């Protein structure tokens, strides 16, 4: 790979990595409070993309520009966030809460999660058609400026800025607010947190909603960057999960780091091995990490049972 190629793939890699970070946070948050892999998180992501797609196709004029573009993007962010939050909230209520009340074994949770994921994505395929769809044009996607000679266009910049804003916001929320400390308390020791007066059900539900907002917005951004389809959640979902494990599951900064790394690995995989092997990278990294360092880069205390 020449230096020139290296430079050209850097910005797309960072943009993809930022996206994966945001999705990975959703996995890691839920894993933190429930010790459960929320398989259906990829469907939250997908439905967020569809929500924005539907509203924007109804609203967007032919060639928006200027202030209208900004408003449309904001509308997309809000709608996808709301749809994601609603999906995650419903998911927790229907597929997980009854099992939690019954103190069901982990296997039952996993199967329920997979069932919910299957149901949602096939339902979306049925309702909205099974072919991929492009987002309507929200702005003129020109090159804004060059970094070290590599062009940065509007979509990539929007992706990176929005993802960074969400990551910083979430970090503040978890560290500084009352809700954040309650989430950390439940993650650390649910029983003790309950004794201290934390309403665990409410905190779990809100954790899902926070993860859902991030996942839904990520779906919209992903749709802007490529396309929206009912299967679009699968690969980013697995990759983001791999990212969460890579960084150390249950660890928020780990998820961000892992997402960035996997985004770059996946993007550089294309010039090195070819487009058709693009998605193998995430799985290979996942298996390697689990073999040699199952607690992830930044470490997680939850990695092993025995």
């Amino acid at each position, binding site marked *: 790979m020449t230096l020139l190629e290296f430079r050209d793939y850097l910005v797309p890699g960072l943009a993809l990595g930022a996206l994966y970070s945001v999705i990975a946070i959703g996995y890691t948050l839920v894993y933190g409070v429930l010790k459960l892999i929320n398989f259906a998180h990829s469907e939250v992501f997908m439905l967020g993309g569809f929500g924005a797609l539907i509203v924007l196709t109804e609203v967007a004029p032919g060639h928006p520009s200027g202030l209208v573009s900004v408003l449309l993007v904001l509308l997309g962010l809000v709608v996808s966030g709301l749809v994601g939050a609603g999906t995650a909230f419903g998911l927790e209520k229907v597929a997980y809460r009854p099992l939690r009340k019954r*103190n069901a074994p982990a*296997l039952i949770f996993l199967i329920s999660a997979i069932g919910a994921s299957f149901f949602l994505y096939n339902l979306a395929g049925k309702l909205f*058609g099974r072919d991929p769809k492009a987002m309507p044009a929200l702005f003129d996607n020109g090159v804004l400026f060059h970094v070290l000679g590599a062009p940065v266009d509007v979509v990539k910049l929007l992706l990176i800025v929005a993802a960074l804003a969400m990551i910083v916001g979430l970090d503040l929320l978890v*560290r500084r607010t009352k809700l954040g400390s309650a989430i950390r308390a439940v993650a650390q020791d649910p029983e003790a947190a309950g004794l201290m007066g934390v309403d665990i059900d409410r905190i779990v539900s809100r954790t899902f909603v926070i993860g859902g907002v991030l996942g839904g917005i990520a779906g919209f951004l992903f749709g802007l960057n490529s396309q929206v389809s009912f299967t679009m959640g699968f690969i980013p979902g697995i990759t983001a999960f791999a990212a969460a494990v890579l960084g150390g599951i249950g660890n928020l900064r780990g998820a961000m780091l892992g997402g960035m790394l996997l985004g770059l690995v996946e993007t550089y995989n294309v010039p090195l091995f070819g487009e058709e092997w693009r998605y193998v990278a995430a799985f290979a990294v996942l298996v390697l990490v689990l073999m040699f360092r199952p607690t992830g880069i930044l470490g997680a205390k939850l990695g092993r*049972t*025995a």
Partner: protein
Amino acid sequence: MSTLNDTSAVTAVQVAHLPVSTASTASTASTASTASTVSFRPARPSAEALAALRGHRWYERPRWRRLCALTAVGVLLAVMTGEQGSGADLLFSLRTTFTGTALWAWIAAAVALWAIAEFGAVPRRAVASGARAAAAPLARIRPALDSSPRLRVALVVAGLAAAVLLPLLFDRSTNQVLVDWVGIYVLLALGLNVVIGWAGLLDLGFVAFFAIGSYSTAFWSGQLPVKPPFELNPFLSIPVAMVTCLLAGILLGAPTLRLRGDYLAIVTLGFHEIIYLIAKNAESVTGGSLGVFGIPHFSVDLGPLQYRWGLDPLDYLWLLIGLITVLVLLFRKLVRSKIGRTWEAIREDEVAAAAHGVDTVKYKLMAFAIGASTSGVAGAVYASKVGFINPENFPLLYSVLVLAYVIFGGMGSIPGVLLGAALLAYLPHGLKDVVDQKDRFMYLGALLVVMMIYRPQGLLPARRRRRTVRTREAS
């Protein structure tokens, strides 16, 4: 700082005085009244009366919540059974559903159901007693079977005879379905049952081993772009496929089975995707997305004993029934041996099993490899039967399909798995004209969730599993 394991968090919450849970007061009230069977307190008031005592508004009471939930289910069912979406108009399906009459029929049905359940004491009692009367003979079957081994044997022999003889009456296309879907998937479900039902490991890449078995058969028959050192009789490819899958299972399982169970799920999912991508993209090895043609049928050529399996599905059906019978006998022996008991110990409490000196990784690996090799056998039979395989025969969806079959029948119960897999594998073809084929996975996903909420032990639960569920629910 922002890790979720921050030790200062609990104390911080204590200072912060978060709103105290109202649920905790409710639960103390209910525990107090459950204890009333021994004390002098009156019987527990109904949830409705409790809500009234607490001064809840009408919309906060459980009765209205149930109405809302049932109506939501009605709307969801209307959406699920609505038109197929169109590529051009995103909202086509939803619009037709919400402007059509079917929606109101579903809602009316939901409300009627709710009204009967809440207010109709007479019809409710009639339905309950009717159901009990109808289920009474069914409820007697299980204890009778449990107590009489002779009856069990008779039932098995009758079932086997029916499975062998009945297909003679069916037409050819039905028998094709019976082989390609029912037979093969019953075999797969049996294998997955070892992994998930007995050892409690969630394997989401089970069909990847099926693919490996099929491709290994194709390889040894010399039909792949890479040629084998010598060609094997197709029958010999069964044990070879078994060993190949066994090795693949060990290779994949050895690193990942040391970890928490949920990591295994995602690694096997990734493994399936990698196998699929290799089958699709490595054209010089696997033939790429075009697939492999001309895999020969099975044949026996031992002196006087000569037979060629041909295009007639019946031959393959009988072969599959034979294989399934042998495997069922083997697995029964296995699960009742020390190995089976060890699996149960690991499934119920892995830490406790390890503390008792069980080499958990070894036994988990054993279950994983046995499952994988069963899948390999199914792959070999499938490749030889259809003679033509391509990557689209082994999509990720099918791994979840097999999982759904096993869970529907009852994890860990051989009769349950046989029945569940046979029923669910045949259903899409039986309902071909009623339900769109593409919606199959949607209904299966919903089925998984509903089963996990209401009946996680499955249609015909295993005896041990029934006991576990009871004790766990009681505690």
